[in-house]
C-alpha cells in the first residue's frame, strides 16, 4: 500500500490535527479538578488554529483533482474552497459561542463543544470529498451524530433535549431512506464508486429513479427542504443559539454542495428527472417557508423558516448542473453564511444578556442598542437581497444561473417570493426602529469575541458583493455537468 496517498487527504488530516491539539489542550490545560476557574485557553487557541488550518488548505490546494484509496476519496480545488468557506463560518460560530461558553454551567463543557463541532465539520469534509457512497454515508453520519449531541448540549434544559430527540429520530428515518436508496443503487449498478456509476445509470430504470428520489430526500433532510423540513423549526428553537446558527448554515451548506456534486457526477444521465424534482421542491420550499415565517414570534423559529426558504434559493444553483450554477451556489452559501451568522450572533448576545427570544422583545431595540440594531439591519437586508449588500449580488447570480439553465418560471416564482421575504425581514427592522416598547431590552455591551465576529459579518455583508474578486475566485474553480 502506498502510504503517501494519505497526503492527498491533507484537508481532512489537518483538521484532524486541529481536533487532536484541542483535545490535548482540553485534557491538560483545563482538566484540573480542583480549579474552580477553568482557563480560557481553549477559546483562545481554537479560533487561531482553525484559521491557520484554513490558510494551510488554501495555500496547499491541489492544482487538479486528486484521489486516494482507489477513488474512495476524491478531492478537487473547488471542494477545498468550499471547506475553507465552511471553516470561516465555523470560526464565526466559535467567536459568537464564547460568551455562552463562559457561563458558569458551560465552563466545564467547553472542550466538548469545540470537539463536537469540529467532528461534525470533519464529517462534512469527508462527505464533500467522498468518491464512494459508503464514504459519503460515513461522512454524513459523522456529521449528524455529534450534531445531535450539540443540539442536546444544555441537556438539563427540556427544550434542548426535545429538540435533540426530534433531530435524531428524523435523522435516523432519513438515513434509513437514504440507505435504502443506496442499496437500490448497488443492486442495479453493482458498484458504489461515483466514477463508475454514471455509465450504468439509466433514466428509464424506475428502480434507479426511486433511488434518486430517496437520495434527494435523504440529503434534503440535511438541507431542510420541504417536505423533509418539519424537524427544522422545533430543533432550531430548542437547540442552543450558537448551535442553531451552526446548523442553519454550515451543515446545510455542506449538504447542498454535496448534493450538487453527486447529482452531476452519479445521476448525470437523469438530469431531466432531477431537474423536475428540484423544480417542485424549490418552489414548495421557498413558498411554504415564507408562509410559515410570517407568523412566527420566536425569533429562532422565525430564522428556521427563513433558513428553509434560503435553502430553496441555494439549491436553485443546482438546477441543470452548470458550472455557473456551482459558482453561484458557493457564492450564495458564502454570502448567506455571513449574513445569517451575523443575525444569530446578535440573537445569541441578546439571549445571553437579557434572556429574550421573541420578535416582540426587539421593540425599541434601536433606542437602547443602536450599533447592534444597525448590524442586524444590514444582515437582514442582505438576507432579503437588497442592493448594494452582498445578498443582492448572490441572489442575482443564482437567478442568472437558473435563468441560463432554462428555468425562467422558477426564477420568476423565486423573485415573487423574495418580495414576501422582504416583508417578514422588515418586520424585525420595524420592531427595532419604529415600534416603541415600555420594557425594551436594556442597553448592554457585547464581549470582544462577539464584536470581532459581528465585524467580520458586517464586512462580509458590505464588501462581498462589491468586491467582484470573490465571485471570480470561486468561479475559477467551478465545474459543472455541462462544459
Amino acid at each position, binding site marked *: 500500500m502506498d502510504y503517501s496517498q494519505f497526503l492527498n487527504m491533507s484537508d481532512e488530516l489537518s483538521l484532524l490535527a486541529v481536533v487532536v491539539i484541542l483535545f490535548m489542550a482540553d485534557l491538560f490545560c483545563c482538566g484540573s479538578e480542583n480549579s474552580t476557574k477553568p482557563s480560557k485557553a481553549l477559546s483562545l487557541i481554537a479560533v487561531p488554529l482553525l484559521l491557520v488550518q484554513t490558510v494551510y488548505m488554501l495555500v496547499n490546494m491541489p492544482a487538479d483533482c486528486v484521489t486516494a484509496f482507489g477513488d474512495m476519496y476524491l478531492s478537487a480545488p473547488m471542494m477545498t474552497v468550499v471547506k475553507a468557506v465552511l471553516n470561516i463560518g465555523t470560526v464565526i460560530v466559535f467567536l459568537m459561542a464564547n460568551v455562552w461558553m463562559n457561563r458558569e454551567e458551560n465552563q466545564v463543557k467547553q472542550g466538548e463543544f469545540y470537539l463536537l463541532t469540529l467532528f461534525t465539520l470533519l464529517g462534512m469534509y469527508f462527505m464533500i470529498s467522498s468518491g464512494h457512497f459508503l464514504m459519503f454515508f460515513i461522512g454524513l453520519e459523522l456529521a449528524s451524530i455529534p450534531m445531535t449531541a450539540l443540539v442536546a448540549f444544555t441537556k438539563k434544559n427540556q427544550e434542548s433535549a426535545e429538540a435533540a*430527540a*426530534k433531530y435524531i*429520530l*428524523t435523522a435516523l*428515518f*432519513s438515513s434509513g*431512506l437514504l440507505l435504502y436508496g443506496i442499496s437500490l443503487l448497488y443492486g442495479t449498478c453493482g458498484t458504489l464508486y461515483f466514477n463508475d456509476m454514471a455509465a450504468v445509470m439509466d433514466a428509464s430504470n*424506475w428502480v434507479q*429513479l*426511486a433511488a*434518486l*428520489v*430517496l437520495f*434527494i*430526500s435523504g440529503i434534503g*433532510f440535511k438541507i431542510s427542504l*420541504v*417536505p*423533509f423540513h*418539519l*424537524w427544522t*423549526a*422545533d430543533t432550531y428553537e430548542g437547540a442552543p443559539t450558537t448551535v442553531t446558527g451552526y446548523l442553519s448554515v454550515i451543515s446545510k451548506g455542506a449538504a447542498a454542495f454535496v448534493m450538487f456534486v453527486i447529482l452531476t457526477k452519479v445521476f448525470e444521465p437523469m438530469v431531466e*428527472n432531477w431537474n*423536475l*424534482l428540484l423544480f*417542485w*421542491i424549490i418552489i414548495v420550499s421557498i413558498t*411554504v417557508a*415564507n*408562509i*410559515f415565517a*410570517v*407568523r412566527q414570534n420566536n425569533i429562532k423559529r422565525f430564522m428556521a423558516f427563513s433558513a428553509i426558504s434560503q435553502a430553496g434559493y441555494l439549491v436553485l444553483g443546482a438546477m441543470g448542473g452548470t458550472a*455557473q450554477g456551482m459558482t453561484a451556489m458557493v457564492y450564495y452559501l458564502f454570502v448567506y453564511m455571513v449574513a445569517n451568522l451575523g443575525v444569530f450572533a446578535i440573537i445569541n448576545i441578546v439571549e445571553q444578556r437579557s434572556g429574550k427570544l421573541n420578535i416582540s422583545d426587539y421593540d425599541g431595540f434601536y433606542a437602547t442598542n443602536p450599533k447592534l440594531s444597525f448590524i442586524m439591519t444590514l444582515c437582514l437586508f442582505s438576507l432579503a437581497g437588497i442592493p448594494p449588500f452582498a445578498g443582492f*449580488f448572490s441572489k442575482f447570480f443564482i437567478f*442568472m444561473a437558473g435563468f*441560463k439553465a432554462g428555468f425562467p418560471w422558477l426564477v420568476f416564482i423565486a423573485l*415573487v417570493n423574495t*418580495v*414576501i421575504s422582504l*416583508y417578514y425581514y422588515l418586520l424585525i427592522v420595524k420592531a427595532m426602529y419604529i415600534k416603541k416598547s415600555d420594557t425594551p431590552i436594556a442597553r448592554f455591551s457585547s464581549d470582544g469575541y462577539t464584536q470581532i465576529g459581528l465585524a467580520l459579518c458586517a464586512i462580509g455583508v458590505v464588501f462581498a458583493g462589491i468586491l*467582484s*474578486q470573490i*465571485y*471570480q475566485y470561486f*468561479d475559477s474553480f467551478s465545474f459543472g455537468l455541462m462544459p
Partner: protein
Amino acid sequence: MNFTYTIFILLLPFFSFLILGLAGKWLSHRTAGIFGTLVLGVVTVLSYFTAFEYFTADRVDGVFQTLVPYNFVWLPFFDGGLHFDLGIMLDPITVMMLIVISTVSLMVHIYSFGYMHGERGFQRYYAYLSLFTMSMLGLVMATNIFQMYMFWELVGVCSYLLIGFYYTQAPAVAASKKAFIVTRFADLGFLIGILFYGYYTGSFSFDFTNTAVYLNGAMPGVGADFSKAIAGAGFILPTALFLMFVGGAGKSAMFPLHIWLPDAMEGPTPVSALIHAATMVVAGVFQVARMFPLWIQYAPETLHIVAWIGAFTAFYAAAVACAQSDIKRVLAFSTISQIAFMMVALGVCLPEGGYTDNHASLGYMASMYHLFTHAMFKATLFLCAGCIIHAVHSNEMEFMGGMRKYMPITHITFLIACLAISGIPPFSGFFSKDEILVAAFHYSSAMGWIMTGIAAMTAFYMFRLYYGIFWGTENVEYHEHHTPHESPAVMTIPLILLTVITVTVGWILPGSFGSFVSATGEAYHIHLDWSVAGTSIVIAVIAIALATYIYSGVRQPIAEKMKATFPALHKWAYHRFYLDEVYQFVTHRIVFGIFSRSFAWFDRHVVDGFFNFLAWGTNAASYSIRTLQSGRVQQYAFVFLLGVLVLILMLII
C-alpha cells in the same frame, strides 16, 4: 512606463471626501479647507505628471497609445459575454480632461477658502467638492460606457448636493431638485442607449478596435462586435448613440433640456465655476467625443442632427443672454451657448475617408480645444462674478456699475476673459473658436455664417455684461452705504493664474494642441485660415464697438429706446422665451394631471392590490396550514414519507 499611480488620482479625493465627510464635524474650518486643498494639490501634481509622461512617451504609428493601467471585471454576466468592468483608461482626451478638471478644481478649492469664509457647513462644502472631483475624474478615466454612466450619475448627485448647498433657502432647494430631475430624466435616454448598445455589440468597452494596451496584466475587455449591430439595418448604432446623446444633452444643457442650468446658479459661485461652467456641463461633449469613432463611422447623419441641435441652442442661449440682468444668469446662458459651440464642432465632422482624415474631422480637435480654453476663461469669469457678488452682495446688475474703481484686479481679469470668449487674438478663445468656425464652414457655408453670427452675439452680450458691471450707470446711493472692495488675495490669485493660462495657452502653443489631441490621434498642425479668422475678428470687433456705444455711457439712451421699441421681444428674451412656463404646463397639467394620476390609480389599486393580496394570501395560507407543524415526530415522519412517495410517483408516471 506604467501608469499604475493614476489610481491615486481617483483614490486621494475619495479619501479626502471620506475624512471631511465623516470627521468634518471635529475639524476647524481652516484645517478642513487646507486639508481638502492640499489633497487636491497632490492630485493636480499627479495629473500634470501623468500628462507629461503620457505626452512625452513615444507614439506608435504616429498615434499616442490608449493605455489601460487597470481593468477588472466587476460584474460578469454570461460566460464570455457582457460584463461590467471597472478600470482606468488613458488616451489623449482623458489626459487633457485630467488637466482641465484638476486645474479648475484646485483654483476653486483655493478661491472657496475666501469666498465661503465663515459659512455654515464649510467642511461639508469641501467634502462635496472632493467627491465631485473624484467623480468627474472617474468619468473621464472610465474604460467603458457603463463605468462612465456610474460616475456620470455620481457627478449628477454632487451637482444636486452643491446646488442645494444653502438648503435652508427655498430657491436653492427648488433649483437643485430641478437640476436633478431634468438631468436624471435625460439620463434615462443614456441608460437605454447603453443597454441598446451593449445588447447589440456585446460589449460596453471603449476599446472599439481592440488596440488598447493593457498594462499590469489587467484583464483585456472583449472588443465590441459591430457585425450584429450593423446587421440591424444600420439603425441600431445611430439609435443607441442618439439615445446616449440625449443623456449628454441633459448634462450639457442642450435645448430643450437646458432649463436646469440657469437655475443651478443658486449654488455657491465657485461651484458654478467648477461644475456648471468648466467640467460637469461639458460631460455631454466629452461623451460624444468618447464615442466619436462610432458616430463618424456608423452614424454621420445623426451626428449632423447633433450639430443643428447645437447651433439652435447656441443661438437661443445667446439671444436670451442679451436680455438678462442677473450677472450669473448671463454667464449661465453664455455657458450653454459655448457648450453648444463644442457640440456643433463635433457635429460638423465629415465621414470622408472613414475617421482617418484629420481635416474632415477637424471639428473633433476644435471641440476639445474649445472645451479646454472655455473651461479656463469661463472659470475666470465665474470667479470674477463671485468676487463682484462678494463685494456688492447681489447678483443684479442694477446694484453695480462703475465697479472698475473699486476692484482693479477683478476688472482686468474679467476684461481679458471677455476678450477671450469674444474671440479676440491673441487670447486663447480666439484660436479655439476659429477652429470651430473653420470646421463649420467646411461642413456648409450656412452653418459657418450662422456660427460666425452667434460668435458676434457672444461678443455683444459679454461686453454688455462687462460695461454693465464695470462702467455704465453706477448705483451711487447703494455704493455709499456699502463701499465695494477688492477681494482678498486668496480669491484674486486663482483669478490671476487662470487669466495667465487664458492669455498664454493660445499663442504659446499655437499649433501644438492639435498634435496632442486629434480625431485620429496623429499630430495635426493647426494653421489659421485667415479668411475665416479675419471675418470673425472683424465681426467681433464690430459687436464690441456696438456694445461700447450702447452700454458704456453713464446714460444709455439707445438701450432704453430699444427696450421701448421692442418691448415684446425684450420681455420674451428676458423670460427666456417662456420655456420654463411651457415646462410647468407640460409637467403639471399634462404629466402630473393626466398620466401621473392614472398611474397613481394603477399603482394604488393594481400594483399595491397585488402585493396586498400576496400579504393577505400569505397570512391566510399560513393560518390554514399551521396544523402541519404540530410538533409530533410521528407526523413529521409521515409527511416525510408521503413526500418521498409523491416524488417517486411524479417521476415514474
